Structures are given as C-alpha cells and as structure tokens.
C-alpha cells in the first residue's frame, strides 16, 4: 500500500474533489478552487515524507528514492499550475467547469506517476495513455473557441498516431524477446534489424511526447490553440514526466544497445535544438514562442540523456526541475497578461516595464533562466547538461549546443527588449494581479533563485541517481 502512496493519495483527492463537486450548487462552483489547491499542497508535502520503496504486482510496478523524487517534482509543478490557473478559471466562460479542470489534470498526473513507476511495457503504456487522453480534453477546454477545439482534435489525432507507432514498436519488442518485463527485455535485447526498427518506433512515440524534431509538429498548433494554462502544463509537466521515463527506460532496458541509441539521440538532439531555435526566432505569439523555445529546451535535455551515467541522470532531473520553475514563471506572466487583457502577441509587450515593473522583472528572471545566464539556476542546469555530454567526449555536439544557446539568447532578449526598452503609445495598462497569481510567481522566483545558489539540491539528486544506472 505505502509503496504506491503517491498514486493512492492522488486518487483519493480526485475522489474527494468529485464528491465536493456533486454537493456544490450550480452557481458556487468556484468554491472548489481553495480545497483543490490545499489538497494538492497537502499531497505535495506528504510526498516528501520518507517511506518504503519496492516492487509490486510481480514487477509491474516499482519505486525507488529517485522515482519518488521525480514524482515530487511533478507534484510541485502541478501545484504551481493549479495556482496559476485560478485567474483563468474564474473567468465567466470556465466558471461551470472548474472542477473538471482539476479532476482531468489530476488524472493525467496519476497516469504519469504510474508511467514513471512502471516495470513492464504494459503498465508503461497504460500510464502513458492515461496521461495523454485527458490532456486532449483540456486542450479543447474552451470549446466554443475554434482554435481551442482545433487544438484538441489535433492532439488526439496525432497522439493516436504516435500511440499506434509506439504500440507497433512494443509488439515487435515482445515478438523478438517474448516478454514485456523491463529486466527480461534488457537481458535479451540485441540490435537485429527488427529490434532496431522496434526501438526506433518506440523512440518515435516517446519523441512525440517530448516534442523532438521531426515528431514535434503538433506542438506549435496545440500549444497556440489550447488555453494558456493547459499549454504550460503540456510543455512543462507532461514533457518532464516523459523525459523521466524515457531516460529510465533508455538507461535500464536499452542499456545493451546504448551505443546505437546514443547515435540516434545525437542526431535528434542537433535537429531539435536547431529547428526549435530557428522556429522560435520568428514567432510573434507568446504561446507559440514558448512552444518552440520548449522544443529547443528539449533538445538540450537530450545532451544530458546522452551522458548516460549517474551524472547524466542527475543533470536531466536537475534541469527539468529548474525548467519547471523557469518556464512556469514565464508562462505565469504570459497567463496573467492574457487573462487580464487578452493580448498574446509579443508586440503588445512593448513598454510593459513602465506599467507593470514587478511582472516584467519576473518575466526577465524566468527568461534569463531559460536562456542560461549565470548565476541564475538555468545556467547551472545547462552547464551540467553540457558537462555530462562533454564527459562522453561529444565535444562537437556540445559546441553545436553552445551555438544554439547563443541563438536562443537572441530571441529571449527580444522579449526583454520589448518590455524594457521599446516604447509604445498604447502599452498594456497597469493591472493588479490577484493573490494566487502572485503566490504562483513567487514560488517560481524562489525556485529559480534557490536552486541556482544552493548546491545541496544538486548533491541530493546526485546521491539518489547512484542506483539507477
């Protein structure tokens, strides 16, 4: 029981929220916000209580200290998303569906937790689908808006396609090894042509979730169309969870063919970083912009994965943790602007600093962290990723990554320039953000600052990562 405590707690609060929803009168649906956030905060805090780890159901499910840490990180991210969504949920259009938002989000989180903990491919697939399908509903949450509906449809179609290919790959793995359990697959997996095909199909399915080039095309449209809070969830939490399980499977199940998958990732990393950056440069819509920037960031994460060692695992988790805070910080500011004024174009940000200095500074900090400017957290995150790749002697890859960082600096600074330097005749007027938004942003700022300066965080992850590889 206790081994599965993260999932059970989440299921419990989902049920509680459902019950509250039933008893709430029609016009008082917003009363669910506070209990939802408090319960999530409680679950997040409870996740840090040490407890037993181990294997359940004959190896279908397993946890370790490291996996628990990953789940805790996801919990924190979801909590921030909850807090940031409040201003949007309170708008008239969403008022009726507030509880649905929380419940759907929680079910995807449960799916992710099962996915990370999975010990065989069946469990993994179940978790993956549970984590994906509700998101399509969420993307179409503003269903009367054409773009939102389109985003939902696109997401569900593309994820059906990718699931199909992934399943195809899994069936070939089962066909060639005769098992779906991770340790047994790991023991017998070779690099026969059929198995390479199986691996690549599996890889394509995961690459879809992480939005790696050329499997990323859905991302921009869905990110733009979906409500901005769902976008931030998709590009941060959902991506982070996929990165975690992807890394675990590569390091354990496919350890034998590491030489091959490292080459695959080498190619995809270069493609993803470069294409992500080239597209990001041209975007004028803040959501599309952040979508492509998050694609480019995914390319950087691959550098840590390719490190394939204790160091690699650590750097990936560390980077995702920082990435959650930085990206949610940027999204948080974009969200509040979008909710208060409906403006989503970067051109509208001209002169924003003059009217809303605190929000501009927060945005600047988040973007600096994403760009990797020392001494903010993002710099250390990237530095360690590059170090992990450099340790494998992949200097050319690191060089390309550094060049890409410079390009990314260009477009992150464009936004900062718009906010601080450009003048505008009609800047976005001053507005006061509500307490929830401020709380959410404060958590992000604290995260960005503390994780960058406090080395114990990194040391802690490093220690936990010892067993996985």
């Amino acid at each position, binding site marked *: 029981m206790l081994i599965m405590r993260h999932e059970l707690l989440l299921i419990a609060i989902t049920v509680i929220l459902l019950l509250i929803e039933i008893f709430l009168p029609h016009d008082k649906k917003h009363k669910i916000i506070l209990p939802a956030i408090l319960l999530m905060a409680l679950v997040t805090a409870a996740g840090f209580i040490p407890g037993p780890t181990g294997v359940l159901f004959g190896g279908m499910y397993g946890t370790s200290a490291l996996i628990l840490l990953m789940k805790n990180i996801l919990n924190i991210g979801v909590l921030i998303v909850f807090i940031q969504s409040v201003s949007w949920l309170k708008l008239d259009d969403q008022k009726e569906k507030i509880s649905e938002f929380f419940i759907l989000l929680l079910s995807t989180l449960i799916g992710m937790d099962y996915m990370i903990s999975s010990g065989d491919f069946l469990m993994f697939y179940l978790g993956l689908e549970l984590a994906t399908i509700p998101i399509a509903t969420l993307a179409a949450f503003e269903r009367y808006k054409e773009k939102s509906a389109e985003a939902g449809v*696109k997401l569900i*179609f*593309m994820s059906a*396609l*990718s699931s199909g*290919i992934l399943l195809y790959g899994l069936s070939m793995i089962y066909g060639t090894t005769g098992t779906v359990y991770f340790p047994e697959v790991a023991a017998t997996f070779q*690099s*026969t*042509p059929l198995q*390479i*095909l199986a691996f*690549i*199909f599996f*890889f*394509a399915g995961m690459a*879809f979730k992480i939005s790696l080039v*050329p*499997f990323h*095309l*859905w991302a*921009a*449209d869905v990110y733009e169309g979906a409500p901005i809070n769902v976008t931030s969830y998709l590009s941060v939490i959902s991506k982070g969870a996929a990165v975690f399980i992807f890394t675990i499977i590569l390091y354990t199940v496919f350890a034998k063919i590491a030489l*091959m998958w490292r*080459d*695959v990732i080498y*190619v995809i990393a270069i493609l993803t970083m470069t*294409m992500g950056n*080239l*597209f990001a*440069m*041209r975007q004028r819509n803040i959501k599309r912009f952040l979508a492509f920037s998050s694609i480019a960031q995914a390319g950087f994460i691959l550098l840590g994965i390719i490190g394939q060692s204790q160091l690699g695992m650590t750097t990936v988790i560390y980077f995702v943790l920082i990435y959650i805070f930085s990206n949610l910080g940027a999204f948080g500011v974009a969200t509040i602007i979008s909710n208060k004024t409906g403006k989503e174009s970067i051109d509208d940000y001209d002169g924003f600093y003059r009217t809303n200095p605190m929000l501009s500074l927060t945005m600047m900090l988040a973007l600096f962290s994403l760009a990797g400017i020392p001494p903010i957290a993002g710099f250390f995150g990237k530095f360690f990723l590059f170090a992990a790749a450099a340790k494998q002697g992949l200097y050319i890859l690191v060089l390309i990554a550094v060049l890409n960082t410079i*390009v990314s600096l*260009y477009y992150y600074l464009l936004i900062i320039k718009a906010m601080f330097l450009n003048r505008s005749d009609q800047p976005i007027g001053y507005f006061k953000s509500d307490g929830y938004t401020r709380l959410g942003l404060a958590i992000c700022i604290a995260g960005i600052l503390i994780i960058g300066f406090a*080395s114990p965080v*990194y*040391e802690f992850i490093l220690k936990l990562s010892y067993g996985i590889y």
Partner: protein
Amino acid sequence: MFTYTVWIVLIPFFLFILIGFFGHKFKPLVSGVVGTSGLFASMALSYYTAYQYFFVVGKTGDVFGKIIGYNTVWLKLTEKLHIDLGVLLDPISVMMLIVITTVSFMVHLYSIGYMQGEKGYMRFFSMLSLFSFSMLGLVVATNIFQMYIFWELVGVSSYLLIGFYYTRDTAVAASKKAFIVTRFADLGFLIGILLLSFNTGTFDFLTLTDPNGVAITQGSGIMFLGLSTMTWSMIFIFMGGAGKSAMFPLHIWLPDAMEGPTPVSALIHAATMVVAGVYLVARMFPIFHFSAPVALDVVMCVGAFSSIFAAVIACTQYDIKRVLAYSTMSQIGLMMFALGVSGYGAEEGLGFMASMFHLFTHAFFKALLFLAAGAIIHAVHSNYMNDMGGLRKHLPITHITFLIACLSIAGIPPLAGFFSKDEILAAGHEKSMMLFILGLIISALTAFYMFRLYFSIFWGKQQQYHHTPHEAPKVMTIPLILLALGAVFAGFIPFSSFVTSDGKPFASHIDFAVAIPAVLVGVLGALTAMMFYMKETNIPETISRSLGGFYRAAFRKFYIDEIYLFITKKILFNYVSRPVAWFDRHIVDGSMNGISYVTNEVSTRIKGMQSGQLQQYAWIFVSGAIGLALAFIYLWTL
C-alpha cells in the same frame, strides 16, 4: 563550535536585502537605525568570537591554529576541484573581523548624522551593508577563490559608494577610475590564482599555506624567465593586492576616490578595503616566504617606495581629504614594507606581527581622522585647508580627537601608533641600517604633514566664515570619541602574544635604540610644522619656492596621472584600440551579421513545414520514424 560565525558575515547581507528592497517603505531614518543596529549585532558577535578564539579554544598546545568555523561545498566541478564557501578563523582573520565590524559600526553610526537630508539616504545604507558583507566575506575566506569572489564584490560596492553623488561628473569619473584601475590589477590576481592552483592543484588556504604541505615543499613548478612558476604566481597575486591597497604605480585611484561621501572614505579608503592587499599578502605569507622570496622582495620594495613617495606628496596637498588619502597610502606602504622584511616563525616573524599590529592601530586613528575631517567639512563646507583656520574654538571635540589621532599616527608615546610603528622600525632595523633610516625619514614626514594639517585647520590665521561653524551633533561626535579611545589604548594590547606569522606567541619588547630616534624624528617633524603653520608665516612659501621644480612635481603628484593618460590616450587608444575597433567593426561584426542573416533566411525558408495541416504532420512523423529506422538499420547491421 564556531558555526555561528557565519552570521557575522550574513547579517550585513540580509541588511543589504532588507534596506535595499524594502527601505523605501519606511522613513529614511529607519534604514539608518536598522543598518546600525544590525552592524552592532555583527560587531558583538565578532568580539565574542575573538574572546572564544583567543582565550578559550583557539590554542592547541602553544600555537594558535586555523579553525574552519563553517564550510559548504558551493560548486563541485570534479571530485578534486571544488569551490567552497566558508569561514576560516585564525589570528589575522579574527583580528580583521574586529577591525571591520568596529569601524563599520562607527561609520554607520556617524552616517546617521552626516548623511541626514541627503537624497539616497537609504541607498547609502544598503550599499554600506553590502560593502561590509563583502569585506567580511573576504577576510574569512577559506580558499583563494572565495576570496576572489568577495574581492570583486568589494570592488563593486566601493565603485557604487564612490559614485554615490552620481549627478556630479567628478564623482562619476572617480568611481570609474577606481573601478578600472583596481579591475586591471585584479586581472593580475586572477592570473596568479590560476597559475597557483594549476601548480598546486588546490584553492584551499589550509593546504596552500601549510609550511610542511605539498604546495610549499614541492610546488615551485617550472622556471620561466629565471623565476619559478610559484614566484610568478605570487607576483601576479600581489599585483591584485597592490591595486586594492593603492601601491605605486596602481595608487592613482585612491586620491580621486575621495569624491565619495566622507564616511565612505573612512570605512573603505582608510580602514578596511585598502588594507585588503596587506591582508592578502599576510594570508599567503608562508608561500611568499618559503616558495617565492623574490616576490617578497618585490612586496618590500613596492611598499617602501610607495610609502616615501606618498609621504612627500602629502606634504604638498591642500585638500584635507587628499592629504589623508596620501597618508593612508604611505602607512599601507609601511605595512607592506614590514611584511616584506619579515621572516617566518616566532621572533623571526617580527615584521609580520608589526604589519598586522600597525594595520590594527591604523584602522582606529585613520578612521578617526577621516570622520573628524568629515565633521570639519560638514562645519565649513569646504575641503581646502586655505579656507580653514582657528577652528579649535568652534569645534572643541573634533579638535581634541583630531589632535589625538595626529599624535598617534606621528608615533608619540604612549599612543597606539607609537607601539605599532616602533615594531615596524625594529623589523626594518633587524634587516639593515638603510631600511631603518628610510623608516625614520617616513616617520618624520608623517609627523610633519599631519601637524601641517592640524595647525592649518585648528590654528593659523583666523578666517571669516559665512556663518559660524558649529560642532557636529552627538551621533557624529560619539564615534569620534570612541575611536579616539581606540587610538589611545589599542597600542597596549600585547599583540605579539596573539598574532604572529606561525601562530606561536612570543614576547615583544621595546628596543630603545629604535624607539628613541623614532620618537625624536616624530617630535622634530611636528615641531617644524608648528613653526611653519601655527602662526601665519611665509616660511612655507620660501621653502617651496627654493625647492622649485621638485616642489612643483610633488604638488602635481609627480605627474603619474599624466603619464597614465599619455599611455592610455596617446599610445593605447591610437595604436592598439583603433586597429582592434576596425577589426571588430568590419571583420567580427561583418561575419556575425552574415551569420544572423543566414539564420534568419533559413528560418524563413523552413516555415512551410509548419503548415497547420494534420495530414502533412502525420506524413512527416511517419516518414521521420521510418527514415530513422532505415538509416540506423543500415548503419548498424550492414
């Protein structure tokens, strides 16, 4: 046991955050009071630490050891190479804690009155806290990298404070000059650090300065231009120290730095930051002594020359803060000189002890002189001694405390300056007769220019003031009185039983063969000044005229500034910067513009991929997967 010492450093840091970010929510006076009480807490902790260290736990056997009070690995680059942040306690760092927190507290208290009504009152106090934090972090550094980090922080906060009156062009120019000159020196420091750590494989002071440790016994490294790597690295490190401590020829920023508010001059440019260079050499002293004696000779020569050079200039200046600035440079030169002649081990290390002792007493009387000068400037609204005279009746407290400080710095017994300067002269005497005589000349000059200052301000001709000068408020005179007590009594501390080069206490005594001539030349200098300046006479004018060119050169500070300007403006700008700028504009910018043009073009061309059509996405997805699979099957199996 000493974990709490980390709070000595952290309290000013939190003050900086608190005053800097939230100070504007309160009345200005609040930030002053908060800053001052915070510093008081820091000072109280320092005194407690000193008590614990010197009287309770510091001694193991017969020796004051080095204790790591607190340590944390901050940036772990590899297993061996990591940068730590921590607190290292040994006699010199504990002594510096006392000096810095005491002077900083006095300056905070004094500034409550001095800065009253200034725009930027709150900014001033937040910067003072930032400076105190950086300086404290510097002296407790456990490794040379931490020292470097705080060293730069000190530079930045000094820059901010010198340029406090940022609407005044001269202040802006002075702050830039200070920053650039010290930054240039820090480049040497950084090169030195890299050479040293490359050679020894560690940043850690404990390992570096252990006389039996690896660094000293086998770390001399390869030879380059006749000197070992170790010597070169120590010379470079000393370059950083010379920059901060305003040693010739990197001293040019110090007189200009007087543009800052006077309390800042007292804190930064008299008692704390400028002695960072001395502290640096003292911290690395075993390496200097055992592995790089040539570098130690450099320290001695630079110190001695700067000392006499600055003393001569000080005799000719009229701006009272500038006289004090050159006097500071001269006294720091003496400290460097004492380190340079010192040996290692109990009595052998007399110079080391003398240097630290003088640093300690100098902090009191020099801070006092600056703060008193601030009170005078506050009263007559001028920096020039020509505008002053006969002030003793108007400013009685300032007068008495200023006189005490002058007597102390002139080395008149039994004031503090006498004891510490006597030890320095004794150390010089042990080395050679020549150096002793040099020391005597500097002492005579010191007494002369200090009393020249004293008599022209408080005696001399009676001036007609626009409105009668009045004594400063209590909040300003109390620090003066407290510091005056320090300037009187600090000398009675038996310093050699606490601070020595190797931690072994020894008993020092006063050598009359040294003390008597020293006192005599001091009195002689003071009497000469009295003759010249107590009543209005034309003797100074006659003398300066008879000295002719030499006087003019000294008055113009030996044209060092002009030489710098000539080198930078005429030679560097024309023959180095111009070609580099051309290369930058045409070649570097050109290729960068080319790259960005190509990048932009490519990103326009590929936008077709993102058409928004699902069929196309699916097509790219599937063909991508199959293409990858085929490529890797081909590469790996055929």
